[in-house]
């Protein structure tokens, strides 16, 4: 089974018709074509690729695992499918589509297949714009995020990525530190003795 067949089978299994330009775009992407390491339940394959690549830009693999290693794309797919009410699903999907349209307009191809520099530039533009509009750069809220309809796509995506990443085993234990059973609380310890931030 070649890649084209694999994609089509996945698409059929999910009930999506991936044909024509979209499929060609995925197959022929100018750069190394990104691949999904999970089967999306909510996103279309194109949307899922964007989410995965965008999550990886927000939290990339460095000397420690990145968003894709940590399973963040599947996490976001699950949240969209199971947790988000329909209105939030629609709003998020529209944000995603608009974001991708801008990538196509600016760079001539979908975000997922843009070069790393192009991806970072586009994220930077959206991210700076969104934060400058949030009230004084202060907290933009966490748990209520996405429920009021007022959140720019890029920040909602950043929230979901950080949540998925730092509640993952890789994020919690390899980037931060985690101990389920810390033992009696010690209230005032030199940071140097503790090391990195606690995941929770």
């Amino acid at each position: 089974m070649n890649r084209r067949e694999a994609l089509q089978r996945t698409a059929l299994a999910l009930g999506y018709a991936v044909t024509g330009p979209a499929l060609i775009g995925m197959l022929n992407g100018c750069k190394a074509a990104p691949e999904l390491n999970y089967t999306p339940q909510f996103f279309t394959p194109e949307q899922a690729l964007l989410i995965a690549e965008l999550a990886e830009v927000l939290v990339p693999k460095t000397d420690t695992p990145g968003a894709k290693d940590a399973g963040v794309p599947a996490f976001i797919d699950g949240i969209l499918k199971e947790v988000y009410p329909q209105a939030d699903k629609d709003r998020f999907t529209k944000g995603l589509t608009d974001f991708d349209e801008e990538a196509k307009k600016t760079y001539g191809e979908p975000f997922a297949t843009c070069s790393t520099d192009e991806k970072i530039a586009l994220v930077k533009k959206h991210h700076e714009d969104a934060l400058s509009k949030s009230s004084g750069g202060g907290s933009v809220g966490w748990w209520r995020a996405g429920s009021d309809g007022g959140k720019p796509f890029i920040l909602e995506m950043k929230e979901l990525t950080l949540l998925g990443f730092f509640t993952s085993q890789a994020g919690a234990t390899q980037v931060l530190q985690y101990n389920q059973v810390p033992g009696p609380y010690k209230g005032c310890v030199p940071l140097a003795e503790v090391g990195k931030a606690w995941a929770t």
Partner: protein
Amino acid sequence: MNLNIEAQKQNTYDAIVVGTGISGGWAAKELTEKGLKTLVLERGRDVKHQVDYPTMTKDPWQLPHGNKLTEEELKFYPVQSRTYWVNQANKHWWVNDLENPYTEVKPFDWIRGYHAGGRSLMWGKQTYRLSDLDFESNAKDGVGIDWPIRYKDLAPWYDYVESYIGVSGQAEGIPHLPDGKFLPPMELNCVEEVFRDKLSEKFGRKLTIGRVAHLTAPLPHDPSRGVCQSRNMCDRGCPYGAYFSSNASTLPAAMKTGNMTLRPHSIVHSVIYDEQKRKAIGVRVLDANTKEEIEFFAKVIFLNASALGSTFVLLNSISSSHPQGLGNNSGHLGHYLMDHQYRTGAEADVEGFEDKYYIGRRPNGIYIPRFRNIGNDKRTDYIRGFGYQGGASRESWARGVAEMSFGADLKKSLENPGPWKIGITGFGECLPYYENKVTINADKKDIYGLPTLNIDAEWKENEKAMRKDMKESAAEMLEGAGFKNVRTYDVADNMGLGIHEMGTARMGKDQKTSVLNKWNQVHDAPNVFVTDGACMTSSACQNPSLTYMALTARAADYAVSELKKGNLK
């Protein structure tokens, strides 16, 4: 006829306890340890310590969706989810609101857990004594009715309960927040220590580590319970039994006596009143599984079904002698519903201490005892007062959303703990008002066909004036202590959200104006005791569970001694 007598004999015990939460567990333990064959009726399923805590050792990545409920799951919890606290790790401890309806005449959040252990599995564990400032307050202020007891009546029972459950805390010598039998206190962190010192220096006010029902040292009398490991996953059930719950402590103790029969899925909907004998003789149970009606009989009945649960049972116990419900000859049953108001206060940034951190997730915070309307600190705009709970901590990775960086830079910066923040939220007393009440709604039935409750209660002027001060004083203290960028908040809350609902079957000296006497006996049916939150004559501002437990142990002791004297037949 013979068959009926045989059935009645089989279903007869020395005592019946209705409910297994924080007070029901205590009633079960005390009555069984004193030798009474006791039937303990729980409306929900059984929950065995450790065995039935499905999420107790799950790591964050083992919980779906970052611990958030799915949209489908959330549909079961339209009321419970108002706490913003129902999640994947604890969802099995909250009632299904669709199956357990009530009517909010005014908005009221009725937060419940229907299973063995009840809310003792999910409680906040904050454990404070009331004092004579509280017991005398109604009489002094001319509000409501006087408590029929004083601190000296309850003090030995506070000692008794604290010694058994294990309470960690710091003795402070504060007259209106009496010290207890404390295990070693948990530690304050570096910033909280500074706040404590500044509060003392600038305001002459105390700050102490929260007094909590967590073991910070082993309990010699109960080696099955272990010391707190600072997991702060308490609401899932603790594998160490480090915090007090009925499941980890009182129910196993009752079971060990061999005198307890615990019957789950047993919904008690009324007390049986025998018109010939002129007394309560048992309870009627609807078996939640079989829908069968069963009667159980006993000499002594303890109602510990939670404040509104026990009041429902009494209101629903209609007989020709008690057409308005058992205990309602006064007409006061169901009235004077109270709660604690909170979710208002302030938070601030803390400069410095970047080189300091902590180890462990302390399931506790700081406590600032009440200072208003004590001594010379008199308010003209409201009576009574409030305490503060809160704490300082360093910001987590969640701060990253609002940071200007992303990618490798953000990832690197989040490896370090964020800046320190500090916050306090007030817990304010609520006065007893006749108009704040619950009544039976015969028109709206639950899934078992039982009538439901109408809840009609609201905060009034005294609470509103106090609330304003709760917010402003929080900011004043944080600012006075030198913290920066102080922000107040007031997340307007419905009554009920304090999850300290109480009153509705209050204790009093006069049976014309109260439901219970000073031993928690129903005036009209002295072999029926109500020792949960329903009995409270005023609310004070302290977390109330310890007081329910102490009142229960005291009432059980009295009940057994009265039985032995032949005064309860």
